[in-house]
């Protein structure tokens, strides 16, 4: 139930509106249990088994439809917002920038500050969408593995092949947008300096920027690490454990958003 718990945590902490778009892992697990408890007397070859499997597959398909729909909708939004952000930056620079039509340092700085915050949040949202995709894939892989194990079926391998092709799992476009966003951010942020870092170390409110997204991101990283820790069913299709060097940092940050962070 470890993954189920982790998934539940992620869902609880996820961005508003995303909660019911995740995999119904618990329900599927129940179904697998049900099938496996009825199945022993009538294993492969019986009509009922085929029926059960068909129902299971039907539910899985519905889940995947759900993922696809949500994912593509978000993707579309991101595409639009990505372009809008770039235009907005252009406008700000052209209007209030040093070479703009109405150069005004205060306005420029103010607008840039807003843009920085928005763009970082935007970046975070996109990454969280990729995380969404990944965690659902993981859930599917796990439930399929359970199914095969409990019912002796051979559903996992071919089915997962199809999942790999699904829109919600083909996150290349979003990744590309994320990278583009990163380079835009670099252009909008001033170069880092040591003075800034020491100031931040002393400050009491680190997590003030985009708290919801930030917390979610931290949670996602921790969850990923937890999920990939060795389990009793570690097998050839399992991912290797994940070792994040900044786990301490991340962990302390996630527990107390407002405490100072020791930046390594």
């Amino acid at each position, binding site marked *: 139930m470890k993954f189920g718990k982790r998934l539940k945590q992620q869902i609880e902490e996820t961005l508003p509106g995303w909660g019911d778009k995740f995999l119904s892992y618990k329900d599927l697990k129940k179904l697998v249990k049900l099938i496996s408890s009825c199945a022993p007397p009538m294993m492969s070859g019986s009509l009922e088994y085929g029926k059960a499997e068909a129902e299971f597959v039907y539910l899985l398909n519905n889940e995947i439809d759900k993922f696809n729909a949500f994912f593509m909708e978000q993707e579309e939004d991101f595409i639009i917002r990505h372009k809008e952000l770039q235009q907005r930056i252009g406008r700000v620079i052209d209007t209030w920038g040093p070479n703009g039509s109405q150069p005004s340092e205060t306005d420029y700085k103010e607008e840039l500050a807003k843009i920085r915050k928005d763009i970082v949040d935007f970046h975070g949202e996109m990454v969280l969408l990729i995380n969404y995709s*990944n965690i659902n894939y993981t859930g599917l892989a796990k439930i399929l593995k359970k199914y095969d194990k409990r019912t002796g079926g051979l559903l996992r391998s071919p089915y997962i092949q199809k999942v790999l092709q699904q829109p919600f799992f083909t996150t290349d476009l979003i990744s590309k947008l994320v990278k583009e966003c990163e380079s835009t951010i670099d252009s909008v942020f001033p170069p880092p300096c040591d003075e800034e870092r020491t100031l931040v170390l002393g400050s009491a409110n680190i997590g003030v920027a985009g708290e919801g997204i930030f917390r979610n991101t931290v949670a996602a990283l921790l969850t990923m690490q937890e999920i990939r820790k060795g389990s009793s069913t570690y097998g050839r299709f399992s991912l290797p454990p994940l070792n994040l060097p900044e786990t301490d940092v991340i962990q302390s940050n996630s527990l107390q958003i407002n405490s100072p962070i020791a930046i390594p």
Partner: protein
Amino acid sequence: MEARPAVSVQSVVASQLSNCGASLSSSLPMYPTSLGEKYPKFPDLQQASTEKELKQYPGTVVSSLPSSSGAVGLMFSSSSGFSADLHFSSVPPQEKHSGPAPFNSQSTNSETSIQLPHSGVLQSTASSQYLIENNEPWCIDPLPNFLDPFPVQNSQVACSNKQSDWQEWADLVINDEDALASNWNDIMADTSIADSEPKEEKQPLNFPMQQVQASQQIPAVSVETSVIAPSSSAASGAATKQRMRWTPELHEAFVEAVNKLGGSERATPKGVLKLMKVEGLTIYHVKSHLQKYRTARYKPEASDGGSSEQKQSSIDDLSSLDLKTGIEITEALRLQMEVQKRLHEQLEIQRNLQLRIEEQGRYLQQMFEKQCKSMPGVDLAKGSSSTADDAFAQLSDGVQNSSGKNDPGVSQIDTAKEVDEKRKGREREVPGDPETNITSTSDSPPSKRSKLDE
């Protein structure tokens, strides 16, 4: 030989149709010809897998065809007909969006087994326009399910709603081949709603902007998949919920068109649609996209972010931000960026790993099957598991070792050699489910893991 499956299919179709009282008699005469010419290779697969699989997994199409590597591919790739096994392996790595078909077939197979009329009808006219290999695998999907009586209950319900749709399709198909592509989209628009199978429609819309070479396949794919989708949707009508996958290029074209028409407020969906001239794009797509576009533009410059809650917290943040210096804020944002970048990086690595693991698994499975074929009487699924386990152990060890460097480089060649050696030296066992048979391999991962932990 070709006539046999055609006839059996036809009779099954006829019985199914009579169950539902649907009248596609006008289309039926097309079957013998269409099925006949479409099944040159069909009997092979039919004989090999259908009989065996039907008994075991009557309800599922996917798991019933693992024995042929090409067959698995046919589930989701239009290009992987029996005559084109190579296509199958080339599709996944490139991650073309050209294969969402199977889920439609899956869900609808369990719901209703009345898809063949559609596919049959589709093929007869589609054949001239599309590659034959696209249609062959298509046929295989619904057929095994035909002999399974259990979905009748659902099909009864679905039936009554579909009659008018079928007539429409049948008419369209008989009449106009040239307009087929655009008509299909209209049909899809009309019928695929509540179920919202979004995958199929996006391909024709992507490809005009991207890959031209697959252009001939795309209409086939979208047509293929769309046929199943409507049969599972409950409502019919003008509204559509078919989902389209937008790309930045497409969006650029959209913005251009909107600007030409005087801005987002002035532009109308119809006008934009006309200006864009993108094949397969419907007015519904443009409408919804325009709506999103307008919302994104005219949201006050405060925040780009999602819902009101999010906005609220960001507004609060903004006001509290006033109390802090700009430098602190910037640095806090930088930290946030770092964490986000890290997560993204890890996600990409994880995804690549997942892809490779499955790819390796598939590759090895195929190899074993090829080997097993030369040794008749061996149960494929079970016989390959023992040596597969060792091979996979090597794989996961290799992956583990390299994960520390964040470089998921696994050598396929080494693993394959390993597999070969073991296969020769080892006798075949018949253990249980391959998935559970990891006792031999589970020893190695923990020891490797402890090394990493040091």
